[in-house]
């Protein structure tokens, strides 16, 4: 066994013997991803589920068309979408002022009569200004109803007039003799319209895009895939940093001097430290990958490419901290600077806030961070795009940092 391997193995053994810190840094990003994901999760069927829209309805008509309109809200899908409360106008206004409903639909007086007489009428929607989306849905619904009712009123104008002639619309009050001419007229119109309406020549077919090789699997936006890479790289930095800070600790407590007294060279020691940090980070990545799949159903895309990205990112982190430790004077300085550096990287690099949400200036600075390129690489692989640019950038800068560390760190090993 080479001396480098011996040191790497020893570091790994020590990490495994006191695994709490590493486990914690693996569990925290998983927990945070879970928490944030649960808050913003659009649902398991990947559709946006809206809460029921609280709609107040003021029925100033109370005639047949208004009854048809209100009856529509009892249909299954609309019943799930709308929570309808019938109110009179003053009560409705009060409730709207208190913001107790998303919208109020006002059915005007003589709504049914006007429709039957082919006169223009108007459905009024009062929207709650404190809500943006739900009142808009209610408005769209009213607009659709207006179009539908207009068409029906125009096609069945005669029938409407007959129906309105009945005093009350109950089975007991209407005789077969009264109904017969109405039904005959309606039947004739339906037969005539059938030519135009059925069969429909144009149909809409809805298709959801799928990744290559993913046919048959439901595909949708998984919020955990969106959050987890950012969290992972932030905590990878926290996990790998102590391995490199060990250089300062061992220098302070005499272990470095003892090591340098052996045939071990300072280059071997620096190499061992860099790969020790890399190994710990990579093992955590493997666990994180598995945990992400099992807990959050994250589809990592092409696993081998993703593993390559993890390996290169871990190397980058390890080499970066090795280089920093060449310039830190002692372990206190290393301890004091490491965490702020990681936090700045994470804030600008998209670990804390989505890259797309950052201001342009921050996004530009973020391009200088490992977090940015790791997240970009992860997403590209997940989306089936080429991760060549992030991989190359991370590999080249990582190698440059390692080279600086190899040159500068042996000087720091001097006691």
């Amino acid at each position, binding site marked *: 066994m080479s001396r480098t391997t011996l040191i790497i193995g*020893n570091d790994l053994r020590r990490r495994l013997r006191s695994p709490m810190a590493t486990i914690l840094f693996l569990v925290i990003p998983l927990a945070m991803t879970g928490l944030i994901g649960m808050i913003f999760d659009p649902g398991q069927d990947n559709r946006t589920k809206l809460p029921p829209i609280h709609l107040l309805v003021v029925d100033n008509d109370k005639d047949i068309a208004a009854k048809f309109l209100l009856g529509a809200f009892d249909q299954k899908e609309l019943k799930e979408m709308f929570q309808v409360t019938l109110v009179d106008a003053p009560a409705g206004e009060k409730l709207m002022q208190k913001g107790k409903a998303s919208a109020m639909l006002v059915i005007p007086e003589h709504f049914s009569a006007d429709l039957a007489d082919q006169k223009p009428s108007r459905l009024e929607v009062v929207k709650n200004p404190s809500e943006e989306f739900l009142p808009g849905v209610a408005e769209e619904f009213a607009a659709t109803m207006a179009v539908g009712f207009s068409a029906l009123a125009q096609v069945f104008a005669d029938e409407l007039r007959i129906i309105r002639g009945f005093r009350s619309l109950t089975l007991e009050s209407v005789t077969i003799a009264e109904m017969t001419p109405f039904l005959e007229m309606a039947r004739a119109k339906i037969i005539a319209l059938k030519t135009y309406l059925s069969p429909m020549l144009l149909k809409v077919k809805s298709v959801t895009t799928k990744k290559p090789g993913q046919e048959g699997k439901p595909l949708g936006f998984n919020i955990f895939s969106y959050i987890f890479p950012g969290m992972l790289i932030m905590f990878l930095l926290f996990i790998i940093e102590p391995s490199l800070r060990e250089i300062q600790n061992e220098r302070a*407590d*005499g272990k470095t001097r*003892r090591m340098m007294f052996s045939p071990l060279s300072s280059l071997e020691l620096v190499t061992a430290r860099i790969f020790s940090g890399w190994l710990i980070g990579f093992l955590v990545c493997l666990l994180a990958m598995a945990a992400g799949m099992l807990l959050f159903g994250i589809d990592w895309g092409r696993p081998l490419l993703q593993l390559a990205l993890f390996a290169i990112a871990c190397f980058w982190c390890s080499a970066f901290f090795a280089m920093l430790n060449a310039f830190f004077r002692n372990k206190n300085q290393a301890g004091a600077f490491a965490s702020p550096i990681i936090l700045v990287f994470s804030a600008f690099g998209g670990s804390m806030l989505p890259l797309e949400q950052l201001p342009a200036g921050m996004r530009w600075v973020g391009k200088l961070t490992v977090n940015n390129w790791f997240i970009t690489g992860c997403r590209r692989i997940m989306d089936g795009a080429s991760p060549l640019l992030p991989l190359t950038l991370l590999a080249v800068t990582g190698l440059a940092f390692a080279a600086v560390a190899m040159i500068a760190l042996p000087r720091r090993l001097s006691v």
Partner: protein
Amino acid sequence: MQQKILEIKNLGKSYGETTALANFSLDLAPGEVLGLLGPNGAGKTTLISILSGTLRDFSGSVAFRGQDLFADRRLKNRIGIVPQEMAFYEDLSALENLLFWGGLYDIPEKELKRRALELLAVVELSTRAREPVKKFSGGMKRRLNVAIGLVHRPELLLLDEPTVGIDVQAKVSILDIIREVGRKGTSVVFTTHQLAEVEQTCSRIAIMDQGKILATGTLAELIRIVGEKEIVEVSGEFSATAFSEAIPAPSGAGIEILSVSDDFAMLAFADSQDIPAMMQRLFAHRLHVADLKIKSPSLEAVFLKMTGRSLRD
């Protein structure tokens, strides 16, 4: 002539304006146990750091068995160090530590394991070989620290204050180990503040201060070098005048009266063999001597005289 195991010639190292080592020269014969005494700031740690290769930009040369110590890293297989710090992993067991530190040297794996177990027995840690070291007492940790320095059977062992901060029992145990190592032929350089330890353990003593060796030799040689004398305190029934008449000062026989009063006198002897002659003269002058105390010259006195300060300064 037997080849020196270690030859340090004109070693010099400065930190800015401060000189840590100035023309420092020292050599060591095989099997010799050398005590390196010096107050804080004397340059002991700088010397050890240079020998370990962790300190560069120095002048002079260091040869191990005639070869430049820094020219061939493999030479380090033949040198061991016991640093002042507890330089091992407290979360590992004693055995794991020995195997790790020993693994840095070119020792076959089987031999290393055998040697580690053997050393655990020597430092009396066999029964706790597989326990994490953090559970050990200070003395046990010090013993392990020494064992790690010996794991690769070095020909030269450097010990940097190996008994700091431990109880008497543990100290005795470590000094026994060092003596045993020396007895088996390993050369030892042993830096310490404790004069008694050097007196008990070392075959040769080097006194250093301000980056230089002031003197080297056995304890007796050092005493001779500084001209330190044995002090004799005499008490009894006599007058100061009568005592001075019996032993006139200077006596010319290497006897010096340091002080005299009625019933008490203090004398310095260059040679303790002159004490019986002094007693005969006192009896010849019918002076009644009730008590006689002889104080041998100490290393501390030698050190004080050479460095002008105590080791605790």
